[in-house]
């Protein structure tokens, strides 16, 4: 009995954590370039809606995913234009993106509520999937979860071992230095903000095409916001992001496990856990003054201008 609980919780952690992971990784890249994009919730919703509707209309899952990714990028480019070129308040612009995403997805998604569409099935990896205990949990998942596994080391390698990654980190931490060395700060910020949007779109697509294959208004239920918090928790590092995302995933499915072993905590109280945990995590991360040492993008949220005469 207990083994089932652990297995189901771990499985749930990986599944529920995957959208969080994608959104967090994308936002890490964007914030590393110095752009704060709070619109994750809106981009994820549009990603979820786009993914589901395209899957419903065409029956082609990969087309749906690509469409969702592109839509996420499109929304992010709006925020990028506002924040980088027009240099508006990035906090408010991100919020506007959330409103837009919620509104458009709810509006256009109205007709898709209750519909069924193609969704991702689990694929078992040979050999690895047969490892006792761990195998079925980790290696018998849908392909997007596997993409999550791969994304982390790839992004880690990119960030710390490549020239492009070094340039990215320089732009976020000292845009003046990067500019003086000839790196195009504006272009860098545009690219990674849009890339962040791609990831958010992907995260949303996962939710409506794999996690809970359906469309419901506001189905991301605040996960975009949790991802924003996870970026701080991860200290902008992809590996810590992985730990955080799956941990949060685990907490959000904990309620199901509790129900099975009949822990008498009401559902709605358990629903609060991820959000309370996020607050707790922020308390911890904020009191750590290690941000400077670890090269957090200190130019985060501040528009860059070469000619600004102070």
């Amino acid at each position, binding site marked *: 009995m207990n083994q089932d609980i652990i297995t189901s919780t771990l499985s749930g952690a990986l599944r529920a954590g995957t959208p969080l992971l994608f959104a967090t990784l994308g936002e890490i890249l964007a914030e590393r370039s110095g752009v704060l994009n*709070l619109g994750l919730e*809106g981009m994820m919703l549009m990603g979820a809606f786009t993914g589901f509707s395209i899957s419903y209309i065409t029956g082609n899952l990969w087309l749906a995913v690509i469409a969702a990714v592109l839509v996420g990028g499109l929304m992010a480019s*709006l925020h990028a234009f*506002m924040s980088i*070129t*027009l*240099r*508006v*308040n990035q*906090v*408010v*612009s991100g*919020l*506007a*993106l*959330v*409103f*837009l*995403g*919620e*509104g*458009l*997805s*709810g*509006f*256009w998604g*109205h007709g898709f509520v209750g519909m069924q569409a193609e969704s991702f099935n689990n694929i078992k990896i040979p050999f690895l999937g047969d490892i006792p205990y761990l195998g079925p949990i980790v290696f018998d998942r849908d392909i997007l979860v596997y993409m999550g596994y791969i994304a982390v080391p790839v992004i880690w390698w990119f960030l710390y071992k490549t020239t492009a990654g070094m340039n990215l980190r320089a732009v976020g931490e000292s845009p003046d230095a990067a500019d003086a060395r000839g790196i195009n700060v504006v272009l860098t910020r545009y690219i990674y903000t849009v890339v962040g949007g791609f990831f958010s779109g992907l995260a949303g697509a996962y939710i409506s095409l794999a996690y809970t294959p359906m469309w419901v*208004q506001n189905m991301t239920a*605040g996960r975009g*916001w949790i991802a*924003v*918090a996870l970026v*701080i928790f991860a200290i902008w590092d992809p590996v810590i992001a992985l730990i955080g995302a799956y941990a949060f995933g685990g907490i959000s499915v904990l309620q199901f496990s509790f129900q099975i072993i009949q822990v008498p905590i*009401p*559902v*709605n*109280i358990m*629903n*609060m856990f991820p*959000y*309370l945990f*996020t*607050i707790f995590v*922020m*308390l911890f991360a*904020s*009191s750590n003054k290690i941000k400077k040492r670890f090269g957090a993008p200190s130019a985060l949220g501040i528009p860059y*201008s070469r*000619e600004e005469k102070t």
Partner: protein
Amino acid sequence: MKIRFEKRDKKPSKLLIFLASLLSILIALVFLGFIILSLGDNPLTAYWQLVSWGLGTVPGLIQSLVSMMPLLFTSLGVLIAFKMKLWNIGAEGQFQMGAFAATWGALYLFPHLTNPWLLIPLLMILGMAAGAFWGFLPGVMRAYLGVNEILSTLMLNYVAIYWVNYLTYGPWKGPHSYNFPVTAQFPQSAIFPQYGVGGLNLGIFISIGMAFFVLYLVRYTKFGFHLNIAGDNLRVGEYAGINVKRMIILVMVIGGAISGLGGMAEMSGVLFRLQPNFSPGYGYTAVIIAWLARLDPIATIIVSFFFGVLLVGSQQLQLFMQIPSSLVNAFNGILLFSLLASEILLHYKIKWMRA
């Protein structure tokens, strides 16, 4: 081709600011029109539906005022914090907690108190206290630990919503909840005086009064003076001897209290019972209202009314044209973007340069 921004060396006039806001609304309406077209509906008919009921008919006007009330309360709550560049996105949660506290008082704490002159002020205090507490938490976290208030208030929003859900689905589930859980109805002594049957209630006037109070607070008191200083430059506030930590907490507490009062007013004035998801996101719309009103408390009254009309209108849209009410959210998003862009144009000249 490069775009260069040159700071204007004159402050934009009030007229210009007003025109910029108007222009933003028009641009947003145009985009809205395109979205409506995408569903195959006629945008002009939609525009008309959106405003004709709320502005053109008496019952519609009253409904607009009723919708204005929670918007006005939450916008005022958010406005004070914004003046100090504290991004209080938690009006929604503070609003919900105020409603919760009012319900608690009316149904469980003071069920035998039949004198409305005693009960209603008591409920108001409860509502404000609950909202204040919900603002106090992120305020303290920000003041002493530097925790980003955007995230903390947002997380608390979800906690508050689930708290209300828990109560209404669970221990407070009333006798008449069949398909949809609601608490028992408020006793008569807990209900705001009503004027006619359209929903016009005392709460609406209290909200307008609150706007004037906030105006006084922000313009004619030491608190307001310090608020403006700290809002312009926190460090200079410290330099001037202002206890910045205390200011942060105070601002969040006052803002929370006002939103909490709004939640109480929604209970005592309009709904008379607590139910899950009773707020269509008032606290979030409040952010846009405060921004559109340029953080001016009196302008907030007008803008809240305008959004009240829109809210009522969106229900009409849903009823008569089957256009989902989430359209208003999209509208809000586009409006906010246009406002942001217009804000930049007000303060900077754009120069196009050949690279």
